């Protein structure tokens, strides 16, 4: 494989974002990687807008509760609780789609890509729309800033406090859930602390809570003021002290760097590179932007072995298709079904460890469905997959899955069937191939769509391409190339 300038740039755009946009294709063959990355950074420099999709009536309900000083869920009437839950579930779907649109449309690709990384790192399931919005905002604001700030804000977010039961973590009745996960998953990783460190840290986090409005509260009468010994240090520590201790540990910098290497570079970690990155991350006091520069400005990032070596996550797959061939999806919610069926529904991570990624995305049925998606979009094919009936997700997703569902004859079972009703705007994409001669067309499309060469020969492929005109040729060739195993990689 020849590693062309265009391929390297596409590589950068896939990893530092959600893939190339149709309108950017022409410049990718000429610009250098260093200047491309500089513009990527610049495009993500602004602080992001708060994404607010919460229903007005729901906000009214919350305001009303404020007036009445109802601060705990227990103070709500049964009807109020039900309304809160139902509307929240609906709004979380909107939040999902709004953020997905940002991934597709925002110029701040690196910020959204890193937010997507942190969304999986600080995985939290929560059915309260306000908590979810607040957590997403924390993540998007700090996505390229200081990991320490990000960790502190996430740890004090209502979403995380509720998800990991810290509201129930009280003096004399410690709940260890948050203390364990903050060490195991958010900072140091397994093997670097003892069970006793977890127990002691849980005591330090006692009294950390959040109210119904999503504000952090410190309940000092629930806090354990005794001495705790954590990772060799002893004192009357509180939660902030524990987070600082965890940030002092080099293991934290190494754990995050290695995870990010897997996410951005290659699932097969080059240990030496990862150690180098971890040391630099620790020295920079956890400056995320510097870490990203260390990765994307390096030569090794563009080595052939790292190109086309990662299996796209479901969200990367969907966003990537939408960026390459822009479209208006009439029934937007169908994208939630696709996410769920492929195993990555935003805001519903499988557990606090987030999505495992890599080959875990691929099993028999998920692979076959991935191959069908472009054809479904193009040909208004049928989408007859039903997402996993996951009780953990509760009603939200089940309702979501049933929307637009109807029965199919002949399969013997009831399937959720939905059709992706999409109108594709091909113009920008087609422009890329204006100057390309007919005999080079298929090769050129292939190089644009795929990060690793197609296995299927051009001759065989032509049997599945509509050659009645140049435009239809480009369109059908693109769809067929997107329906290959190679397209699952970036």
């Amino acid at each position, binding site marked *: 494989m020849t590693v062309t300038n265009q391929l390297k740039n596409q590589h950068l755009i896939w990893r530092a974002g959600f893939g190339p946009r149709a309108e950017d294709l022409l410049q990718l063959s000429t610009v250098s990687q260093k200047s491309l990355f500089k513009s990527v950074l610049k495009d993500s420099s602004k602080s992001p807008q708060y994404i607010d999709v919460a229903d007005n009536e729901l906000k009214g309900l919350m305001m009303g509760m404020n007036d009445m000083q109802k601060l705990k869920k227990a103070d709500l009437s049964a009807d109020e609780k039900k309304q809160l839950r139902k509307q929240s579930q609906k709004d979380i779907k909107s939040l999902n789609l709004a953020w997905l649109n940002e991934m597709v449309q925002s110029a701040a690709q690196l910020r959204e890509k890193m937010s997507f990384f942190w969304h999986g790192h600080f995985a939290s399931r929560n059915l309260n729309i306000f908590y979810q919005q607040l957590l997403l905002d924390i993540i998007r604001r700090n996505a390229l800033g200081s990991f320490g700030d990000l960790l502190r804000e996430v740890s004090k977010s209502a979403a995380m406090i509720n998800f990991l039961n810290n509201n129930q973590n009280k003096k004399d009745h410690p709940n260890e859930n948050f203390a364990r996960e903050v060490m195991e998953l958010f900072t140091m990783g397994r093997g670097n602390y003892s069970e006793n460190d977890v127990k002691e840290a849980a005591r330090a986090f006692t009294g950390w809570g959040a109210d119904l409005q999503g504000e952090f509260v410190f309940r000092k009468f629930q806090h354990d003021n005794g001495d705790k010994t954590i990772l060799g240090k002893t004192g009357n520590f509180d939660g902030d002290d524990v987070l600082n201790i965890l940030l002092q540990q080099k293991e934290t910098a190494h754990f995050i760097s290695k995870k990010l290497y897997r996410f951005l570079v290659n699932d097969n970690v080059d240990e030496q590179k990862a150690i180098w990155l971890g040391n630099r991350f620790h020295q920079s006091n956890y400056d995320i932007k510097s870490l990203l520069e260390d990765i994307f400005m390096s030569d090794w990032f563009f080595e052939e072995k790292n190109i086309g070596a990662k299996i796209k996550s479901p969200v990367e797959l969907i966003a990537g298709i939408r960026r390459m061939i822009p479209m208006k999806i009439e029934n937007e919610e169908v994208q939630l079904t696709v996410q769920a069926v492929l195993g990555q529904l935003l805001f519903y991570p499988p557990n606090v460890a987030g999505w495992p990624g*890599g080959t875990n995305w691929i099993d028999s049925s998920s692979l076959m469905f991935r191959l069908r998606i472009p054809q479904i979009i193009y040909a208004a094919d049928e989408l007859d997959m039903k997402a996993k009936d996951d009780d953990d997700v509760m009603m939200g997703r089940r309702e979501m899955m049933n929307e637009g569902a109807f029965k199919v004859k002949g*399969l013997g079972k009831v399937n959720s069937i939905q059709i992706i009703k999409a109108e594709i705007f091909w113009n920008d994409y087609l422009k890329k191939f204006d100057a390309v001669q007919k005999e080079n067309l298929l090769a050129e499309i292939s190089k644009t769509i795929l990060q690793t060469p197609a*296995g299927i020969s051009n001759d065989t492929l032509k049997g599945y391409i509509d050659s009645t005109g140049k435009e239809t040729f480009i369109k059908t060739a693109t769809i067929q190339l997107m329906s290959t195993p190679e397209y699952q990689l970036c």
Partner: protein
Amino acid sequence: MLIKRKQFIQLGSLATASMMLPKFLKAFEKPMMVPQGNKVLVVLQMSGGNDGLNTVIPVRNDIYYRSRPHLGIEKDKALSITDEVALHPSLIGFKELFDDGSLGIMNSVGYPNPDRSHFRSMDIWQTASESNNYLYTGWLGRYLDAQCAGCDKPTQALEIDDVLSLALKGENLKGIAMKDVGRLYNTSRNKYYKDVLAHHKNSAEEKPVDYLYKTMAETLSSADYIFQQSKLHPSSAQYPKTGLGKSLQTIASLIFSDINTKVYYVSLGSFDTHVNQQNEQQRLFTEMSDAVKAFVEDLKSNNLFEDVLLMTFSEFGRRVSQNASGGTDHGTANNMFLVSGGLKQKGLINPMPDLTDLNEGDLKYKIDFKDVYATVLNKWLSADDKNILGQRYKHLDFI
């Protein structure tokens, strides 16, 4: 977690096999039922860490009630199976299985140095590793590797789900995950995919794309076979209209066919009851009990209950003491249910956990779960358990 595959099965043979339709059709000529002695294993995973002490309840144990002033289930509300022990009130179907001699309860199953994190402990159970050892393959996946080395279809292990569990991922072969038989079949009939597949050449050193092609080849070769089999003798019994009910009915239909599947895998959850345990456990147990009851009746009326073993597990039990939020936190050892017409030991197979002998508030394990696996692999599936589990574990007597 990435699965590292040292070796790749030669894709060429698989790709070719997927085109050899006549071979599949031969399946129709074989006898209609699973032959005598051809045993089937159904693994029911209770995800999230089921609270074993409120499942099989020590109803005369004061320590139990003292530790759980709010959550403890009173004797007269539970389903009594002995003077000392009762089942959770929602496990009505399991109580009937007990009365019928079709239920075995294995207490205090666990492993040394237990891990209280969900996914780590689930990894340990699914991979059958020691707690300080990381494996990238599952115990049933390695069974598949061992049993199915020359198979053209990895259909010996099927998971009824949209996502395949680590338990069914082997070094060379992976089980098939499918929530819906017909859906998988429809997808696999596309000629374009067959052409794409036929053109792939494995690279000299393993690349990510090879992994995708391998999965594709296995899927195409299996989908048609599974679909045809599922149509041979579809179960016509009444099952509850729940997720688990539907899954067990699919499994029954395949068991009644001539398929080569030896292992089925299905999950129910989440049992992670830090809060609101009573309602959650009640809801999940009702679904589990009703579905398993229908499944057993279906098997019985087809004279296959002696050849099927259903085994439940959860990644850990929960603390003996309740927490302050109407729930229980992550614990250690737990019980397993064994359901079959072919059990050699029935009822309470071993003593209830000793609540006077705890490890920092947690139950001590008495039986290594890998002993259970070794027993099932060796005595039920006639496989080389030592090879699959990496060492020799004790063989138990329940089958």
